[in-house]
């Protein structure tokens, strides 16, 4: 391993973004087994081609590789049945009163299912924007499309979400006002 220390630096730059990588893969494949496989592949590739990363942000660079790996996977696996266990990481929570938990689960399940049902090109930009909080510019880099395309896909995705009856009800219901965003 003559280039061991450079490799080690690449690993250190990428490891903090493992959650972001997994989240994107999980939302694109909609399956936690395959998301894990895809992310492992992507990490190996990312480290192997670390020299090709010039000035770009490590997170955007890694997510671009993860995204490509996901699309390769989707092309190979499209006919497979989708595996749904979207709220599994929330149900073990016994710290909350039942009614709060039920309400939170209902909201989460509705939003997750609506997002998971979107076409993949709309889903990915929304996940990158709303869950990873990336800029239009970084998203454009990751999906390899102009910023204008990213913006129109975001608008289209949100439009479809607002039109889905369950989400529409949540949007119109008098939610507590959000302060930021």
């Amino acid at each position, binding site marked *: 391993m003559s280039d061991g220390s450079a490799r080690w630096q690449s690993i250190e730059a990428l490891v903090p973004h493992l959650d972001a990588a997994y*989240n994107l893969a*999980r939302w694109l494949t909609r399956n936690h087994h395959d998301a894990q*496989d895809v992310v492992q592949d992507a990490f190996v590739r990312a480290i192997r081609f670390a020299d090709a990363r010039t000035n770009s942000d490590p997170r955007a660079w890694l997510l671009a590789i993860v995204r490509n790996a996901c699309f390769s996977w989707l092309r190979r696996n499209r006919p497979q049945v989708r595996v749904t266990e979207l709220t599994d990481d929330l149900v073990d*929570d016994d710290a909350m009163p039942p009614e709060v938990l039920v309400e939170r689960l209902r909201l989460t399940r509705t939003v997750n299912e609506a997002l998971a049902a979107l076409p993949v090109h709309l889903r990915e930009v929304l996940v990158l924007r709303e869950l990873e909080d990336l800029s239009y510019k970084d998203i454009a880099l990751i999906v390899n499309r102009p910023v204008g395309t990213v913006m129109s896909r975001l608008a289209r995705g*949100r439009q479809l979400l607002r039109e889905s009856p369950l989400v529409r009800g949540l949007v119109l219901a008098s939610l507590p006002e959000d302060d*930021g965003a």
Partner: protein
Amino acid sequence: MRCDEASRVIEAAADSALAPAESAAFGAHVATCPSCAQGYAEARRLKSLLRTQATRHAAPDALRRAVFVNLVQDQHEESQHGPVVAAPARRRALLAAAGAFASGVATTLLVQWWGASRPPETMATIVADHLGHLQDDRLVTLAATDGHKVKPWLTRNAGLGVPVPDLSAAGFTLIGGRVLEGPPRAAVVVYRIREHVVAAFVMPSAGPLDVATRLKGINVVPVALGDLVAFAVSDVNERDLRRFVQLYSAGS
């Protein structure tokens, strides 16, 4: 700005992505146009729903270990045989065996990685403690708005000298302090902004790799404070929480 122009930029406005002049024109328009104001409110509510309710999946521990083991293995093979693409079957086996994997170089590096990375249970412990105190409505053990009272109390009771800056000018009002018995043991400095509670869990640093995360709708943003690390925890939006983290670490 007219309605057709406003409706084209509603999404960008909700994303806070408009140029200042355009943002001002948009603001002026929605102030006088109920229909566009409604559209804008809906766009913001949808955005808030996605941000607070959609699941941000955290990498499972098995993946965290397997990625690392795979990287070490990959480098080892490459140095011996040239590039080898790991076959899915082998990766699955690695995933299963990752916990038990042990061989010279991998073990050493694995220890380095795990040594530098805080176990995910820490985040879960912090968030559970935060939610528990929110629900019981006993946010602090020592209630005081004066940092000069809170700081020595925390030093005495948590055994850590932690910053307790006055951030009221920025909208963060000090409520007081409490101790997380843990593990990990932490001094908790509690502030309020508007109707939201922001808690800084301060504990000895365990390395550089903690990253911002979100659990159960609660944002967690870590910041290094020399030998200590503070985890700012709140249901307030991420922008305000990051602002808090900057101010808090600057005030230390």
